[in-house]
């Protein structure tokens, strides 16, 4: 959808909190999915907007990841970071291609929710396999703590600046990152009682 699509009337859903958006933020409109994305794109050149089944998705450069999230929080009223997760695209048969996005092996995905504006946005960051590092956003949303730890634990993505980047679901001495596509689930033999340790 173009950034300057004509606003239509009927986006106001029943039960939507009747809160006025803060200063400078225009009221809800049909193209509002674009609005935050447009603001992000204006401020951070290189970001790409994608309409994914009616949901606003912004592909963000790795260097701008922290700044974009700060922008969402401070200027776009995104009150909550719901989730941080990772996708490993190593063995995709056919991958969703978005114009202007150079695909890498990993994608770090964060979902944000704005309660006052009642809308969501998803930011995606392409992360190469040879340098799996992303700036942490725990200083902005402390709720991202567990999500980033889980991403580190299962995918081996290092979040720069995370206060406690340790394994969360797997044992502390685990070798490998189980949700990576090249980490086969059958690699570790089942340790029966009395069996010598596989490692």
């Amino acid at each position, binding site marked *: 959808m173009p950034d300057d699509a004509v606003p239509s009337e009927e986006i106001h859903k029943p039960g939507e909190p009747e809160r006025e958006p803060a200063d400078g933020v225009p009221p809800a409109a049909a193209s509002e999915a674009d609005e935050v994305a447009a603001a992000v794109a204006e401020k951070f050149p290189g970001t790409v907007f994608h309409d994914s089944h009616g949901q606003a998705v912004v592909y963000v450069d790795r260097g701008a990841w922290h700044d974009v999230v700060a922008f969402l929080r401070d200027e776009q009223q995104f009150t909550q970071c719901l989730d941080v997760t990772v996708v490993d695209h190593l063995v995709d048969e056919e991958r969703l291609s978005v114009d202007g996005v150079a695909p890498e092996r990993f994608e770090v995905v964060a979902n944000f929710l704005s309660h006052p504006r009642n809308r969501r946005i998803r930011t995606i960051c392409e992360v190469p396999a040879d340098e799996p590092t992303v700036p942490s956003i725990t200083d902005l949303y402390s*709720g991202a703590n567990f999500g980033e730890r889980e991403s580190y634990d299962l995918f081996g993505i290092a979040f720069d600046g995370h206060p406690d980047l340790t394994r969360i679901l797997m044992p502390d001495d685990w070798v490998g990152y189980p949700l990576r596509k090249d980490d086969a689930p059958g690699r570790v033999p089942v340790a029966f009682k009395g069996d010598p340790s596989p490692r």
Partner: protein
Amino acid sequence: MKHAHPAPTERAAAAGVSPDAASEAMEKARLDRQTDEGAQEMQRTPRELVVTGGLWPEDDETMIVNMGPQHPSTHGVLRVMMELDGETVLRVKPVIGYLHTGMEKTGEELTYVQGGTNVTRMDYLAPLSNETVFALAVERLLDVEIPPRATWIRTMLCEISRLESHLLFQATNGMDIGALSMMIYGWREREEVLRYKETITGLRMNHNFIRPGGVAADLPDGWQQSTLDLCDTVERGMRDYEDLLNDNPIWLERLVGVGVITTEQALALGASGPILRSTGFPWDLRKAQPYLAYDQVDFDVIYTENGDCYDRYLIRLNEIRESLKIVRQCVEKMPAGDYRVQDRKITPPPRARIDESMEALIHHFKLFTEGFRVPPGETYVAIESPRGEIGCYLVSDATGKPVRMHIRGPSFYNLQSMEAMVEGALVADAVAIISSVDPVMGEVDR
């Protein structure tokens, strides 16, 4: 003088050997045996032990205590590391992963048809919410519209699931606080709900009833009456709960003002559901971003202002009532028609068709061996589960299995808010707080 260990000498005396000689010989044999095995003999001189409390350094007055993973009040296998100063909890760190079974990895190995069997086992106290969020995500990637009857059945079952989960919360919360009658009451009504769900879905738990494309089967004959009967039973039970607890002085003493959290903290820590609503923030996805048929039923969002354990108890109690309201409306408004999409690529043909139609047989076979292919894409679908926002992030790559199936478990993120609630509380309050967060470890660890 009586010997310290009378048994061997008495036995020796009975055998006609002098007690002293016998014990000396045995002692020697014992030492020989130990020396042969390379064991060290323990020092025999008695040591004087004086308990003065001075065993810890003066400047280190706090103590780290592990609660769980086997503690009965940690709802499964949650381990909580607490830093204690006397009886006061200074810091708390939840340690999870004891129930990690790699369900997201499993989800990548199952077709979209089979996926429901996997997600339903995550939050095993509200399985139908999990199935719904997964099915909605798959349907969004497929861009299929499901028939209204399926939507209404889902709405009704989600609410049944919610009240089931809240009933079990009442039971376990009562047990944690020490109100054991409440535990029995809660399980009593929940048992009725499970029995009812068995008549609808065929299983008490882990139903795999809500599937991509609709629901697995139509509602059975006489479901209206059994649903209304269930509502009456639960409502009758709720009067017991309220009589027992609402004004109970011990209950109030244990819960009021305990585990207070503010809206800002709850939002920052990613909390949702009853925890967020207990802080005076009326956010419910069923109202704010309606899905299924929630925009066509009348119900209220329950919220309170204080953000303490008692408020979270009250919210869950009254949400049962709202759920009953929705279920009754669903019975009233249930539309007729198909209970699943009539697209043979997504849902199987009726059993009778397989005997007479070759196409039906092929469709059936293909669907249950390969599943259906989903065009490449990614989506995040969120619904309101009893514990808060449950989300499903699904990435497809034009094959029959997802590239990534991630569930945003509300318990997983809600656990973080525990840190804010527990600080400064007593150990006994920590039990009440863990209980009021109502985590389900199956969903936390996935």
